[in-house]
């Protein structure tokens, strides 16, 4: 049995994009949904992540243990399972009313999605922040302490501002990862890019090419974004030459 994906325009070929432009709006809305989902999730993940990172660096054992346990739990289980547990478990207790914002985002699905992605992402961002803090020379903390600053003040005024330089590029990378990871939300009917591709495939009987198009779109978002992050990293390193 030989097949050639480039032959003719069979409905199941990889490059049959004849469903465009009629179904373009699925992809446009899908991109908007995907971007909103990932940006909001990472934004909501930052504060809990900072807290978790400080917990892990804490000397107080129960706090340190809790931070470590949370991060371990979320980093060692599949996002898909976390999504199921949060959507069917947590959000069967909390009822989100079905209400549409921006014309196509149903918050009764969007909010559980954001919560699941943010909880998951906060575990990863916490490790980014922790690494960023640890990368600041220990002498900085010692110097601040010997100048009479309290521990909290030394962390807030001396160490964290320097750590941000290490954290920001990695955080942007987390956003790129999240754009891709959020595709898992399609299994619960959140209308993001993969869901759009799936729906077009089902409606038009063109069973593969919508996914190929979605892959192109992900690439077009993430490749320039990673290049941008590299440029920012280079720019931030400029002050490092001593």
């Amino acid at each position, binding site marked *: *049995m030989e*097949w050639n994906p480039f032959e003719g325009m*069979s*409905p*199941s070929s990889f490059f049959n994009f004849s469903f465009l432009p*009629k*179904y373009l*709006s*699925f992809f446009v809305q899908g991109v908007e949904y995907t971007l909103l989902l990932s940006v*909001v999730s990472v*934004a*909501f993940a*930052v504060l809990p992540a900072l807290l978790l990172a400080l917990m892990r660096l804490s000397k107080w054992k129960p706090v340190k243990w809790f931070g470590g346990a949370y991060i371990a739990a979320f980093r060692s289980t599949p996002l898909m399972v976390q999504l199921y547990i949060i959507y*069917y478990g947590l959000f*069967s207790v909390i009822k989100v*009313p*079905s*209400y549409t*914002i921006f014309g*196509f985002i149903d*918050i009764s699905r*969007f*909010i559980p999605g954001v919560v699941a992605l943010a909880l998951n992402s906060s575990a990863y961002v916490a490790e980014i922040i922790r690494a960023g803090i640890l990368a600041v020379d220990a002498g900085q903390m010692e110097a601040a302490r010997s100048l009479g600053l309290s521990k909290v003040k030394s962390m807030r005024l001396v160490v*964290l*501002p320097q750590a*941000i330089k290490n954290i920001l590029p990695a955080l942007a990378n987390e956003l790129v990862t999240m754009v891709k990871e959020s595709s898992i939300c399609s*299994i*619960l*009917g959140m*209308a993001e890019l993969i869901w759009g591709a*799936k*729906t077009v*495939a*089902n*409606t*038009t*009987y063109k*069973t*593969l090419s919508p996914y190929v198009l979605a892959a192109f779109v992900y690439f077009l978002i993430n490749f320039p974004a990673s290049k941008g992050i590299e440029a920012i990293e280079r720019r931030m390193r400029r002050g490092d030459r001593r």
Partner: protein
Amino acid sequence: MKKLIILWMAVLLCVSAVACTAGASAKEKITFATSADYPPFEFIVLDENNEQKYVGIDVSVASVIADDLGKELSVMNMDFDSLMAALQKGDADFVLAAIEKTPERLEAADFSDPYYTDLPPMVLVKADKAAEFNDAATSFEGKSVGAQTGTTKAEIVTNDLTGANLVALTSVNDLVNQLVYDKIDAVVLDGAVALQYAQSNDSLAVAEVSLGEAYPYCVAVQKGDPRNLLPSINATIAKLLSEDKITAFAAEADAISDQAIE
């Protein structure tokens, strides 16, 4: 640093504010769950304003049911194998998704009178092999046969196709891809769906094998019908059947589906 934090908090506040402005609707809502990946029964198309819209035979029937109950219909779309869970959980009031009444499903839900009987289930295969698969007892020995998870088609593969290995996937679309790219040998589908795929894809055809009679589709409601929907649903179905409306819905859905493929 401080400015950054304030800016960041302001953004979060705006997002939460937008999210919380859920308005109250005028008419009481009734929620119907379906799995809109199954033309011509339920699928998603774009209307003239480029808005996404649920259409299909089941959607038409559901909207008449809602009208007769005096409620506004809202659609919940999910995978087929999640439908019964959503119904049991009470997220959905009723389910129409080309569902047949089976003894197993009767333990999880109650069913209305039948509203539509489709063509019998059919086996979709590669066009050049349509004649090879002609007997349920002998042609499927050692073959991989696909069916949708949690459907009666999956049971057909296990019970009726002797020697076949069941490949159960959630989406029909993925099953067809598996068939087209030779990962499996056949797919068992509802007749109307199998014919549509065979018609829209030259490399596919319906096999000669016959899988017995068709079972009628019913509306599923929560076990014990706590919301007392069945009397009204059955009255609606009786009315639709006597007026021969469902045949008209089917013709309409086929036309929309043909248009969607173009």
